[in-house]
Each structure stands twice: as structure tokens, then as C-alpha cells.
């Protein structure tokens, strides 16, 4: 599993780690979504500090969670994005929908 989730006081933090691709994104998605549905958080924090690699499947993961958070009336925050992920994040334009 490439994610650990922590829920506290309306905020859901997903600590992502390892390599995020189409293969690993599925389990991350299932795990984060079940926590969102359980708690209906006002904020989802995706923490990329320990992510070694990410392709556009990671962007799909961010976009999908953004849509889900919008449905439950919450927002999404990207934090600790390491320099090696900046390029794909900039290319995708997801910065405009996240905080």
C-alpha cells in the first residue's frame, strides 16, 4: 500500500509514498475514497513528501479526489511536493484547482 490516511478534526491527510503509477494509484484511490466517504472531511491534504516517482496517473488521482471533495463540500490541498514532481504537476495545471 502506498498511502497512509489520518483523520483529525475535519481534516483528512493522505501520506503518499513510493511510486505512483496506474498500478499503485488504484489502491490509493480506494483507500482515500473510503475515508472521504466515512468522514466527509472539509479538507483533504495530499502529502507528497515521500513520493519517489509519479506519472500522469497521479494527476488523475488528484483530479478524481478534487471532484469527490467538491461533492462533499470540501477542498483539496497538495503539500510537500518534492522538486522532481514539480514538472508533471506544472504541466497538468492541477495547481489551479488545489491549494
Amino acid at each position, binding site marked *: 500500500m502506498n498511502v497512509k490516511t489520518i483523520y483529525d478534526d475535519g481534516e483528512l491527510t493522505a501520506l503518499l509514498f513510493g*511510486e505512483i*503509477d*496506474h*498500478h499503485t*494509484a*488504484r489502491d490509493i*484511490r480506494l483507500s482515500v475514497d473510503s475515508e472521504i466517504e466515512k468522514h466527509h472531511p472539509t479538507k483533504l491534504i495530499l502529502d507528497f513528501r515521500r513520493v519517489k*516517482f*509519479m*506519472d*500522469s*496517473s497521479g*494527476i*488523475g*488521482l488528484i*483530479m*478524481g479526489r478534487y471532484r469527490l471533495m467538491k461533492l462533499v463540500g470540501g477542498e483539496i490541498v497538495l503539500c510537500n511536493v518534492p522538486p*522532481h514532481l514539480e*514538472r*508533471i504537476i506544472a*504541466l*497538468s495545471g492541477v495547481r489551479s484547482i488545489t491549494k
Partner: protein
Amino acid sequence: MELMNEMNLTFSSKSMNENFARTAVSAFVLPLDPTITELADIKTAVSEAVTNSIIHGYEYGEGQIGINAKIYDNGRIVIKIKDKGKGIENIAQAMEPLFSTVGGERAGLGFAVMQSFMDKLKVTSKVNCGTSVTMEKYIIRRSKALNDDVNP
């Protein structure tokens, strides 16, 4: 420009092989001494192409994906990724950023990433026969430049 090395790889269209494919290609290009950024660019582009073959080419079904990679002494890398899947009807449309036939969790950025992370990208496809993606990147030969300076 001389061919330094060549490799051929064939593997099943399983998502667990996305990691295997990008790791194998990144190990293969190491003799050119790429920077961490250059290596990350290559790994990402390979991951996108292989993922496309799995999701779109074979639509999660069984099939074989082939990779041919070549490195040249001037720092040129040529990577060809092939599948015998359903092919792409409209390549220009498939390459548009944010276009995705499957929607949902797919960002539709695969080709945009390949295009922007590599120096050259060529896609050929035939419906019901398969798709072939050829990507090129040039690595600046730092170690060679250094040697040439020392021993002109």
C-alpha cells in the same frame, strides 16, 4: 554517431509491469550518465506509453508489449514501445492534452507528458493491428566532454 548498445524486452500487458518497464529502461540508459532529472523524464515517458498500451491498446486484456531501446555514443536515446492492441483511430485527437476516451481517473495527459519530457515523439497506429510509439532524447555527455578536455 555510433550505436553503443541495444536491448529488446517483451512482457505481458499487466499493470505491475509499468514499474518493471520504466526501471529496466532507466537501467539500460545509465551508461550515458544522465542526470536525475533526465532519468526521471525518461522513466515517466516510458511509464505513460506502457500504461497507454495496457489501458487503451489491450483494454486491460491480455497481450504483449515490446520495448526496443538504443543508446548512441553522442548521447542519443531511442525508445520504441509497441503493442498489438486495438490501435488508435485518430492519433491527432488522442494526442490532444486532456483528451481521454476512458475519462474518470485518467487525466488524458499521457502523450502531453511524452511530448514535453522527451525531445522527439512519433506515434504510428493501425486500427486492430496495434500502436507504436517512438521517443528520442539527447543526453549531454558530461563525462565524455570532461575526458576530451583532459586528453584532446
